[in-house]
């Protein structure tokens, strides 16, 4: 659907300039033929008349070739049909011109003597050369505009992706804020002591989310700090017998990833895998990075509290993540979700050779 709409958008813009193309082509033809017909000397009146009449005769098969034969046969890959019709077109008009050009000139311009010009065989030769050369020029022109159109489609696609990403990111921020405010609200209700620290941590998280993550890529270490801040923030709310474990095995902390990829997964685990004071199964995080490969896995108890990724309300973060991955890491990622009776596990693997 995306490509169709792009194509229809591009199709509406006509990149061909038939007037410009024909203007340049026939002007060049006029100059070259005038030079030939005047035998390299200064053109005289009779040369201009002959050249213009000859070009008029030549224009008919050339334009038939441009606007009927090429679009109907050559561009439709009907090559045999094209060659046959091209040959017929050439023969018919070259032979007709050989017969009729001189009598027409003599009757229209009876006081002019068109003598040392083309013989019938030369007319045929010039028609052949000109038709072939103009076909190549037309194909070159078509290729030029095809290339321009392709580039414009690519530009539009990029623009569309950028717009989509911006929209997705804009969606994440209020979503995250909404969840966080729920945490603060829960702390406030319970009048916990750490509420002020929690607000400072939330502030740090929000600063990162709003400002620092607004780039194409961030260092892995920054995302790790974000995760740790978030875990600390959540710990104000959630009192679990066993704390969230995070296992980090990173070869290069400066490995670049798209920002805010991991937070939705962590949010999801806290939201649906932990019930304060009740859950014995801790959240387990594994963070591995080696060479160009990065793997993030997160596991939590399956409490069946709207874990479905298709759920419109609870799955906004994960759905955004999925969209982001498809746009940013197309064919470079794997998002695996394993849901058993007791456990819910997500494994994200990214292979990015550019960062």
């Amino acid at each position: 659907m995306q490509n169709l709409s792009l194509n229809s958008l591009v199709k509406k813009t006509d990149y061909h300039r038939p007037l410009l193309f024909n203007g340049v082509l026939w002007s060049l033809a006029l100059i070259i033929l005038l030079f030939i017909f005047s035998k390299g000397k200064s053109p005289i009146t009779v040369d201009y008349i002959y050249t213009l009449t000859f070009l008029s005769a030549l224009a008919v098969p050339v334009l038939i070739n441009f606007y009927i034969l090429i679009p109907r046969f050559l561009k439709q890959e009907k090559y045999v049909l094209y060659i046959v019709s091209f040959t017929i077109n050439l023969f018919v008009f070259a032979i007709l011109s050989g017969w009729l050009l001189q009598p027409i000139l003599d009757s229209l311009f009876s006081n002019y003597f068109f003598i040392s010009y083309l013989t019938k065989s030369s007319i045929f030769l010039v028609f052949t050369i000109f038709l072939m050369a103009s076909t190549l020029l037309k194909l070159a022109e078509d290729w030029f505009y095809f290339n321009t159109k392709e580039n414009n489609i690519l530009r539009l696609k990029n623009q569309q992706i950028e717009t989509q990403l911006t929209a997705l990111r804009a969606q994440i921020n209020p979503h995250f804020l909404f969840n966080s405010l729920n945490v603060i609200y829960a702390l406030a209700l319970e009048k916990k002591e750490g509420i002020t620290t929690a607000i400072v941590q939330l502030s740090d998280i929000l600063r990162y989310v709003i400002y620092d993550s607004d780039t194409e890529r961030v260092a892995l270490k920054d995302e790790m700090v974000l995760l740790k801040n978030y875990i600390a923030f959540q710990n104000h709310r959630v009192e679990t017998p066993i704390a969230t474990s995070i296992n980090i095995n990173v070869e290069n902390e400066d490995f670049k990833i798209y920002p805010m990829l991991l937070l939705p997964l962590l949010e999801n685990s806290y939201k649906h895998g932990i019930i304060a004071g009740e859950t014995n199964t801790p959240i387990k995080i594994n963070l591995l990075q080696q060479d160009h490969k990065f793997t993030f896995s997160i596991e939590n108890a399956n409490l069946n509290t709207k874990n479905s990724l298709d759920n419109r309300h609870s799955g906004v973060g994960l759905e955004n993540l999925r969209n982001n991955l498809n746009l940013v890491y197309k064919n470079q990622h794997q998002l695996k979700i394993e849901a058993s009776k007791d456990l819910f596990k997500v494994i994200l693997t990214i292979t990015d050779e550019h960062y």
Partner: protein
Amino acid sequence: MKTRGLILILAILLFSSCIVKSLQPFYTKASISYNDKILGNWTDNKKGDWFVESIKAKFEEDKKDGVKLTEEDTQAFEAYKDGYYINYIKKDNEAGFIAMPFKIDQQYFLDFIPIEIEDEEINSLAADHLLKTHSVAKLDFPSGDAVKLSWLSEEKITNLLNTKKMRLKHESIGPEETLLLSATSKELYAFLKKYISSDVEEKWKQSDMLTLVKTNAKP
């Protein structure tokens, strides 16, 4: 054809007016049209004597006399068998021409090329610089005993070229910028065809005309 050891020179020297000269003949092979009306002896209005014979007849005469034809002679025979050999004498100066008759529509023409002229009064070095060229004359038969030859005038052709109304291959030669047509025979024929049907005024100038009247004199 008998060789008299004479030097070949330009036909223009025989005439006082300026006729158009061409490197190539004005006729095409298909347009050659033999007419025996001009055979015989003639006197022109400028006191020149013309002795016109059929080339074919001359060759046959030589054959009867036991003259063996060389390969060159055979080629010449094939090329000019439908033409005339003209012996032209004026003020005791003699010259030989080959004239080829051809027709455009219903009009007869004669293409002239000189082949023989007496060399006594011409410096040999100067003669080496001269070139045989063709000229063309319209051939009319005003009466049974008269023939009118109207040569194509250089003035008319130059006028057409200067007014930029004609593209015909040509050169201007020497300090006098003499017009020399360098077009092919096909082009020259096409030009004549167009010229006779054109609206050009006084196409055939009086000064380039000769009226020949039949005589019984022998050369």
